[in-house]
């Protein structure tokens, strides 16, 4: 069992880790290490901070954001990491500043991210610091640009400000992220379950929530449920 971290806020400058250390291969633990791969250790993965230039319109967006943050008195540490990967830019935002950041990217004429395309939760699993992430995919219809803001919170303190005030469309997105991951969006007008029944217990898309299922018989053999089958990762 991984030690549970209780109420120890990590320094916000730390890279948002998105994986745990892994040992061995093929997920086989019931027999001796005949493959020779059992001794493999892979370190936890963290998104790599990107240095300038980011390329494309990303530099312009980052410049405009920095200038606007300065004008609006948002400290520069509100964005504690910027990552460019797979032709997408991600700003890792401290939750204390999320709401003012959202107002800023929506209203600044040079940014104008007027559409919150998608807000989704991600759980990076037990043992990962600040394992619950709320990911905001914002679209600027004016400039035809897309950015991603990401907020990471502790599973024991899954609070972050709601975006409904800025983007009313966030209403159902946030309800779904609450329903599935237990992210609590403070200031949401009615943060209730949306896909699961009202009296459901637990948050189904968290990694420690079982998938469920029963073994089935197929041509004489018993096939275990999907979450009990061998994994290769």
């Amino acid at each position: 069992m991984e030690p549970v971290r209780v109420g120890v806020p990590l320094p916000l400058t730390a890279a948002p880790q998105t994986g745990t250390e892994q040992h061995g291969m093929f997920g086989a633990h019931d027999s001796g290490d005949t493959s020779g791969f059992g001794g493999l250790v892979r370190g936890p993965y963290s998104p790599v901070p990107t240095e300038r230039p980011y390329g494309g319109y990303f530099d312009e967006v980052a410049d405009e954001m920095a200038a606007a943050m300065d004008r609006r008195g948002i400290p520069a540490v509100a964005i504690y990491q910027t990552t460019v990967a797979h032709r997408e830019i991600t700003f890792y935002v401290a939750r204390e500043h999320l709401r003012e950041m959202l107002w800023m990217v929506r209203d600044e004429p040079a940014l104008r991210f007027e559409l919150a395309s998608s807000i989704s939760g991600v759980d990076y699993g037990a043992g990962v610091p600040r394992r619950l992430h709320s990911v905001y995919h914002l679209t600027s219809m004016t400039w035809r640009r897309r950015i991603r803001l990401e907020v990471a919170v502790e599973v024991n303190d899954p609070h972050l400000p709601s975006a409904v005030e800025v983007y009313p469309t966030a209403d159902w997105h946030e309800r779904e992220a609450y329903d599935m991951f237990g992210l609590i969006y403070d200031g949401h007008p009615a943060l209730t379950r949306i896909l699961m029944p009202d009296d459901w217990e637990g948050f189904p898309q968290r990694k420690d929530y079982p998938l469920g299922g029963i073994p089935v018989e197929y041509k004489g053999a018993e096939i275990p449920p999907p979450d009990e089958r061998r994994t290769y990762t």
Partner: protein
Amino acid sequence: MTHAAPYTDTTEGRIFTVTGGDWDDLLRDENFAEDERIIVNMGPQHPSTHGVLRLILEIEGETVTQARSVIGYLHTGIEKSSEFRTWTQAVTFLTRADYLSPAFNEAVYCMAVEKLLDIEVPRRAQIIRVLLMELTRISSHLVAIATGGMELGALTGMTAGFREREEALHLMEFYTGLRMNMAFIRPGGVAQDLPPHYKERTQQFLDVMRERLPEYDKLLTGQPIWQKRTEGIGILPLEGCMQLGITGPVLRSAGLPWDLRKTEPYCGYEEYEFDVPVLTGADCFDRFRIRLAEMHESLKIMEQALAKLDEPGPVMVEDKKIAWPAQLSIGPDGMGNSLEHVRKIMGQSMESLIHHFKLVTEGFAVPPGQAYVAVEGPRGELGCHVVSGGGTRPWRVHLRDPGFVNLQAMPAMVEGGMIADCVAAVASIDPVMGGVDR
């Protein structure tokens, strides 16, 4: 006297539960005041709610004063299940999300995976994807018009819509082997090339549709009852759409020409010539007319895709570490692995056998990271947020379903209107509950 309706006393006052019966009997009940606040529960099993959607309407006479929708009745955990399959197998789950637009679900997920893999799909596969997506757009819009027509009492619209959709599904079956939920689009390309004589079959379909689509103008567009039921109904102006994150035909009916095929082209859409129909009525009638016009545009795109397919080429990436190893063919017992491939892996090349086995059981690994891809689905922006932990299974897949987001506009469209108009408004949003609830 006996009470006509059972009631419970709560802190909010006395609540009666009425399930059918004669209203006059209820009014004779001395406990029941005439000015009671009436809340009607419509659905989830109701022929007019466009699927297993539940509407909770507070009414005053025939006027809806407050409306809320309850969803989740079709939640099947598609996103969670995908985390327990390989990257390729996940397609078979995601295609079932919005069951009226399977090609879009597959394409958007595969494009996100390909973005994480940093691979470029062969040109022919892109064209086939466009062909499948536009065919799906037509069949989806036909269902939107058919079920919308049925819900408003235009039953001939329903039979006509489903008749034409059948043509589209037949063609889809011819292309992919399945009418719906084809899982034909795979990470790296498509499952196989189009079957022989695809040109003639597609041309037949185009001809049939070109002949029949104008019938909808006679049947519905110019019909006074249809106009009266939809014109000026369920209005959601542009500012409302922007606030609520509405995309697709509903947004374009409010006057904004926002179509991702034009604004952020993908799959080579910049090469195709087509128009984006835009109207400014922001009502159910204009949404209907936009869907109709979009079908004509989709036919144009399909025709152009057909011409582009003359150029032969691969339909799957060259990289053998990603490309699905088998090539399918039709045998006497149906579709399966091609005999040639089986002969090779079983008889000639041990390496090929190992390779096949590894790719099919273990799958390919995708480098860690995340990607978001959006395509213009029949209902609006269909987005897919994919997170990889570096393994052979997705760490997280999220579908941003346009039906889910657009359904939030229901209260804004129906409050203050009549109950009957509520049905028209929901139909004009065209939510598909499989996608809404996933």
